[in-house]
């Protein structure tokens, strides 16, 4: 019996008895087997062997600690089982918590006694819907948000005949897959999660709670490696409650996503809150390492190590830094130079072992700074001195030699504009460089951006560059200018600018490539010879002595001995001032000294130093920021505000500056009243004024300094060639742009030019002394006014200008899109909307307008997508819903039409109309751009290109006899030309081909009519006339309804022309109503009669009278309509015809009861 049981259990687990033994178990590494042995032992069927069981358990635990067999139930511990201190701790903890909670409870009582329901309006609407679960899936119904695809418009019975079940099913399927895709995507990433939380209406307690919760979410997301999401949640937490921990965590998340700058700025904030935060230091060190700023990284990490010498991570990092440095040395990479950060940063950015770069600075740079300087009063004449000449030095022969090319690349500009002078200068500097290289004993191979300029070839160009440069500088508002003393100083330091030459293409150095890459879009777009370049500064190694002193200063600064640090910096500065090519360093040192002054409270000193620093390198963020702070402390809020603004325009991420702006705005508003803005003359500069600083590692700061520069459309970068008075954003280029924009409006657009010319000119004068912001606002306002007055072209011009002044404004894009829509330029409208949407993903307006544009382009499907997106964002948008219905109808028609045409094709009907239809609908099928036929006077040729440059068109039209007439009309009409569609061709069978003269007449008539429309103040461009595939009632009525929005009769006329008068009865069937009747009669009187088609007009009227319900409708005709008909019939009567006689007219009179 016993053996049986034993066999049973060992059999069950398939374990031979002799495996139940210490040595076997200890040697066994098969988890499964061990588990089985353990089970056998635990079952105690083989006997009770507590030691063996324990041994087996231990073994199992070492091999597989996660084995389920090891899971043991423990009993619920009571506090008495805990160790004393642990228990006390726990009790204490709970006690303090419960008292905390008592306080918390009261904290949530809203102070004003409201129940907190007042935010109801911000909540989404009450939803409503049902999902019915059936065996074959779920059906849902949403009473409020029903799919408007169906049962929106009551359909004609005949329409049911057309419904293709297959297609409908397909559509449903399509929708299904689409929704799948959507959810799939939405599931992957946090969609539309804002970075900020509106803390309005929250009590402090709630805020804290929520901030903590968001931080927790961030932590969790971080743990699951979802760094982006983590950053979002940390940002949300910070927006509610900025804590060091959140910043620190976000910094880590930034590190993970390799956003070094984000990490640096976050850790800086942490360190400003908790200077001793080792984690933050470590993280900043890592970030600096990522930025290849090894010295700063090292400083941070050494600081960590000095406090916590056995910090493993820090040690590792240090090693990595060393390795990175070596590599850098090998490769001779250059480094981004950043200035010392305000509070806590160190200044080790230039190390001794870094390689030498040639420093080039320019006078122009100095000049620029003067404009930024707001301090001193003495004015420096800004005119001729700053028309720099680029020197073409004879380095051509040295081109193949790297070193020499470096030196030779000093295509420096000299202030004097004196050739020989500048030559000397350059030669001198060349010597200097060489000397330095010798003394430092460092090879300068490949360190410098080379100006392999094909000198001779581009000479002229360059000169012009210079000119524009200088002009540009002049254009900057020279409100406050540095003292002459300073200017002379800057001359001494003789910074020399190196101009990037867009023509140098073949230089193989990375930086050059980079910069030429950057330049390429510009040089492509600007065929003009004005190519603007950013000034480039090269960082150079400091002389040893200066560097060591600077090192000391940094240490002192970090230790908080600002006064001492300041003295050291003085030393450095004096040392550097003696050197020639130390502009960057000198600027840095000034900036650093300013930081010291800021700390010691020597505010005027700060301002002075910052001015100097900026003088050397204009538009650098840190000195600006420091100066702003100093100004603010000095209670000179206006300059402070200007500086803050300047900083923001350079780097939008500077939180400090944002805060500063806010503060200053408040105070300025208090002091100066609402008009305070006018008193602040913001510094204006173009992105290309911002110097490119090439650091020792060869990276330029450009990317980080000007995040927006990429978006700047090419046009705005072109300075007006020689206009000394206007800001760079004004006309000539714009006009060319707008005129090309308007080209599609055909020849009539010429007339538009006149307002275009007058308005901006007057504007120009006004604008001169304005800041870009104001200028922008003004332009925008003007544009908006034009829109209100339906002058869309003018509005477009204004918006273009706005865009030049301050690019990247969503509102401008959406507004301009609206204008384009009105002008019937769907493609452009779409472009603008795209632009707007890239800036702001969920801009409702942009979405709506793009949908409209796409509708016009017949890309119904895309249009629907947009509308859906829109409705997702704003479900209540009724306009969008309506639009969606319309578009859906169109789409449906299109699909059906397509199918029909396919059938037609199959049948190979020789019917011409079918052919035309199919051709047009195949267009549609491919979602091509709409073809537009422009009517050129007296021409039977159709220029179908939309964007034919104007000049061409003119030349084309100038060959025509009718040209003078056209010109007259052009000058008269203010109205965009009516655009017609190819569909008109399909009218052929209804309208016999006319003679040349008749056509001429017709088009002239048409122009007259457009004129008339304008004069009656109807601003709209003609709505597209839907094509009629067949003269069926459904097609006709839907086409008719689609025209409802149109204010003019022309589209109706075009539509009517597509059907034979005899068909009127059929197509209108029982749908006749008063409006239709009046529109048709007006059409006849205004178009048919004027075009001389009296016969057709008569036939239409006659056939109209046979339409069902005509009697009733005509009886209800309004008085004015009756009058119209009366006069119409009079006219008909007066015109002789073979078709009708006076009797017929009489009959008609009777029918129309007039």
């Amino acid at each position, binding site marked *: 019996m016993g053996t049986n049981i034993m066999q049973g259990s060992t059999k069950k687990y398939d374990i031979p008895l002799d495996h139940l033994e210490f040595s076997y178990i200890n040697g066994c590494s098969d988890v499964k087997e061990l588990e089985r042995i353990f089970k056998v032992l635990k079952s105690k069927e083989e006997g009770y062997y507590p030691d063996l069981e324990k041994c087996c358990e231990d073994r199992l635990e070492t091999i597989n600690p*996660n084995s*389920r067999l090891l*899971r*043991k*139930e*423990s*009993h*619920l*511990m*009571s*506090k008495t089982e805990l160790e004393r201190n642990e228990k006390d701790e*726990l*009790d204490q903890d*709970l006690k303090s*918590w*419960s008292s905390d*909670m*008592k306080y*918390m*409870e009261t904290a*949530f009582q*809203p102070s004003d006694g409201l129940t*907190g*329901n007042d935010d*109801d309006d911000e*909540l989404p609407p*009450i*939803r*409503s*819907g*049902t999902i*019915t*679960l*059936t*065996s074959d899936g*779920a*059906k*849902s119904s949403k009473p409020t*948000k029903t799919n408007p695809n169906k049962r929106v418009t009551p359909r004609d019975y005949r329409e049911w005949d057309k419904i293709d079940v297959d297609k409908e099913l397909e559509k449903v399927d399509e929708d299904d897959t689409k*929704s799948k895709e959507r*959810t*799939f995507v939405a*599931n*992957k*990433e946090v*969609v539309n*999660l804002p970075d900020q939380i509106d803390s309005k209406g929250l009590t402090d*307690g*709630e805020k804290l*709670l*929520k901030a903590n*919760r968001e931080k927790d*979410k961030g*932590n*969790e*997301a971080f*743990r*699951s490696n979802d760094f982006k*999401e983590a950053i979002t949640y940390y940002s949300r937490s910070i927006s509610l409650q900025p804590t060091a921990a959140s910043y620190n965590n976000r910094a880590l998340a930034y590190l993970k996503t390799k956003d070094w700058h984000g990490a640096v700025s976050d850790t800086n904030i942490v360190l400003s809150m908790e200077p001793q935060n080792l984690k933050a230091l470590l993280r900043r060190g890592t970030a600096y390492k990522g930025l290849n700023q090894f010295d700063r990284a090292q400083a941070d990490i050494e600081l960590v190590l000095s406090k916590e010498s056995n910090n493993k991570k820090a040690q590792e990092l240090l090693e990595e830094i060393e390795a990175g440095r070596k590599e850098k040395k090998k490769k001779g990479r250059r480094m981004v130079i950043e200035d010392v950060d305000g509070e806590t940063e160190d200044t080790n950015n230039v190390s001794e072992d870094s390689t030498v770069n040639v420093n080039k600075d320019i006078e122009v740079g100095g000049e620029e700074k003067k404009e930024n300087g707001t301090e001193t009063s003495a004015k420096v004449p800004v005119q001729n001195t700053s028309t720099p000449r680029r020197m073409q030095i004879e380095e051509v022969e040295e081109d193949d030699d790297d070193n020499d090319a470096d030196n030779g690349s000093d295509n420096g500009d000299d202030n004097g504009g004196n050739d020989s002078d500048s030559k000397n200068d350059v030669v001198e500097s060349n010597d200097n460089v060489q000397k330095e290289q010798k003394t430092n004993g460092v090879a300068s191979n490949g360190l410098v951006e080379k100006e392999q300029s094909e000198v001779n070839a581009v000479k002229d160009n360059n000169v012009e560059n210079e000119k524009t440069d200088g002009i540009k500088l002049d254009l900057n508002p020279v409100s406050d200018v540095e003292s002459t003393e300073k200017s002379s100083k800057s001359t001494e330091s003789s910074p020399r600018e190196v101009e990037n030459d867009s023509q140098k293409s073949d230089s193989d150095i990375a930086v050059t490539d980079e910069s030429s890459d950057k330049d390429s879009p510009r040089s492509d777009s600007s065929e003009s010879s004005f190519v603007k370049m950013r000034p480039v500064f090269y960082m150079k190694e400091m002389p040893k002595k200066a560097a060591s002193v600077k090192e000391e200063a940094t240490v002192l600064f970090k230790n908080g001995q600002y006064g001492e640090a300041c003295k050291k910096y003085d030393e450095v500065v004096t040392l550097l001032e003696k050197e020639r090519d130390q502009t960057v360093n000198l600027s840095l040192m000034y900036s650093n000294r300013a930081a010291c002054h800021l700390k010691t409270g020597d505010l005027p000193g700060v301002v002075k130093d910052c001015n100097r620093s900026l003088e050397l390198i204009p538009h650098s963020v840190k000195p600006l920021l420091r100066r702003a702070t100093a100004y603010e402390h000095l209670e000179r809020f206006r300059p402070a505000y200007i500086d803050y603004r300047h900083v923001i325009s350079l780097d939008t991420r500077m939180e400090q500056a944002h805060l500063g702006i806010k503060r200053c705005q408040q105070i300025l508003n208090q002091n100066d009243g609402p008009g305070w803005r006018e008193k602040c003359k913001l510094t204006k500069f173009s992105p290309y004024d911002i110097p490119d600083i090439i650091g020792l590692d060869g990276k330029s700061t450009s990317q980080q300094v000007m995040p927006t520069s990429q978006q700047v459309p090419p046009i705005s970068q072109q300075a007006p060639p020689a206009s000394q008075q206007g800001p760079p954003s004004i006309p000539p280029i714009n006009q060319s742009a707008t005129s090309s924009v308007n080209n599609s409006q055909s020849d009539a657009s010429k007339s538009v030019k006149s307002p275009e010319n007058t308005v901006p000119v007057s504007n120009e004068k006004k604008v001169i002394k304005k800041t870009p912001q104001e200028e922008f606002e003004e332009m925008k306002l003007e544009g908006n006014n034009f829109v209100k007055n339906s002058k869309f072209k003018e509005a477009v011009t204004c918006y273009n200008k706005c865009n030049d002044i301050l690019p990247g404004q969503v509102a401008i894009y959406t507004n301009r899109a609206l204008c384009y829509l009105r002008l019937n330029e769907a493609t452009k409208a779409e472009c603008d909307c795209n632009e707007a949407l890239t800036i702001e993903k969920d801009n409702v307006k942009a979405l709506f307008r793009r949908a409209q544009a796409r509708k016009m382009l017949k890309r119904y499907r895309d249009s629907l997508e947009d509308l859906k997106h829109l409705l*997702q964002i704003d479900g209540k948008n009724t306009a969008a819903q309506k639009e969606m219905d319309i578009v859906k109808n169109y789409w449906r028609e299109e699909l059906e039409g397509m199918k029909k045409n396919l059938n037609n094709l199959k049948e190979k009907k020789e019917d011409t109309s079918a052919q035309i239809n199919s051709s047009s609908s195949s267009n549609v099928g491919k979602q091509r751009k709409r073809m537009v036929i422009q009517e050129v006077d007296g021409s039977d040729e159709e220029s179908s290109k939309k964007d034919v440059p104007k000049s061409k068109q003119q030349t084309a039209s100038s060959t025509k006899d009718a040209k003078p007439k056209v010109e007259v009309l052009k000058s008269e009409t203010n109205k965009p030309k009516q655009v017609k569609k190819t569909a008109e061709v399909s009218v052929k069978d209804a309208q016999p081909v006319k003679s040349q003269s008749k056509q001429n007449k017709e088009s002239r008539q048409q122009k007259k009519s457009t004129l008339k429309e304008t004069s009656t103040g109807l601003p709209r461009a003609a709505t597209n006339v839907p094509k009629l595939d067949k003269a069926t009632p459904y097609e006709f009525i839907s086409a008719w309804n689609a025209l409802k929005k149109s204010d003019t009769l022309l589209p109706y006329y075009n539509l009517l022309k597509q059907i034979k008068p005899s068909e009127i009865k059929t197509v209108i069937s029982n749908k006749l109503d008063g409006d239709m009747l009046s529109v048709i009669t007006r059409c006849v009187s205004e178009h048919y009669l004027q075009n001389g088609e009296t016969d057709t007009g008569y036939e239409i009227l006659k056939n109209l009278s046979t339409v069902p319900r005509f009697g009733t409708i005509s009886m209800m005709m309004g008085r004015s309509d009756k009058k119209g008909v009366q006069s119409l019939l009079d006219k008909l009567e007066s015109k002789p015809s073979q078709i009708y006689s006076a009797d017929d007219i009489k009959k008609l009179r009777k029918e129309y009861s007039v």
Partner: protein
Amino acid sequence: MDKPQIILHVQKSLNYTVFDAKWIPCSAKFVVLGNYARGTGALQIYEVSHGDLNLVKEAEKSKAFKCGTFGASNLQQRYLATGDFDGKMSIWNFEALEAPVYSVKGHKEIINCIDGVGGLGIGEGAPEIVTGSRDGSVKVWDPRQKNDPVATMEPGEGETKRDCWAVAFGNAYTPHERCVCAGYDNGDIKLFDLKNMSLRWETNVKNGVCGLEFDRKDINMNKLVATTLESKFHVFDTRTQHPTKGFASLTEKAHKSTIWQVKHLPQNRDVFVTCGGNGTVNLWKYHYPMNRVEKDNDGIEIGIPGTVSMVQNTVLSTQPISSFDWSPDKEGLCVCTSFDQMLRVCVVTKLKTV
């Protein structure tokens, strides 16, 4: 002993069957819901103070309470929404317990489960309550709308009505996105997308689903845990939904009996407890895989499940654990009720080390 321990702080014997206990947010109090022997409903509020439990308030209502939630109430009001044996959903103001501030006879039979979202600063968007009932329907209520549910998920005419045992809100990370997940007695789990009013995903886990919870309601849905009869629970990674295969999941056995409940630690979504029919409470930690997403053969992204490890396994009672609730304010503090009419306040230590 550096792993988390579950330590009893204080316990109390009650004279009624306890079904649910919930911490009142931002307080040291919790509310207990249950059923007196005479069939009436019990609602009691206790406060933890000085190592003891003080009864602060109580009320007896005509129908037994099955479940409650604060999820749809704001922090200032802290109204409790309850579901009772009669199919009635009510919202109570503790300051005036005489009559509910909102009451609707939403279901024909007992409301088994309730969940709320949009309140307490958890979940963006409108406050909503979802109830699941034996009558087979799941209904969503908006306190702003009286008498009628704002959304209903029910079997069609003539279909078998499955007893709905568990409901949970999730995905409420924007004002518009929101999902409801429902578990049924036949092992069905259905995920409804309230934004689109559609059935987003469904599966069957073979055994009746007793408990469901998203790891967090107010984030882009991340994980869903479903506990079942027959001692199994499933963790679904809901980040990546494959068009045909749905969500990736892992299955784990525990408790050797029905797993009644799952509750995620509010301070850390990757830690959760499951409560067993054998009176045990298990503490789990979820570990994410190296990559959460991979591409299948067709290049479509598919999720990869992680793993769970048991952190603690503690016997609390001889009877099933009927409810468990983590304090939202104090990490590790929890209240737990069991069918032996006991109420326990426990502390889980060292949760940070998990």
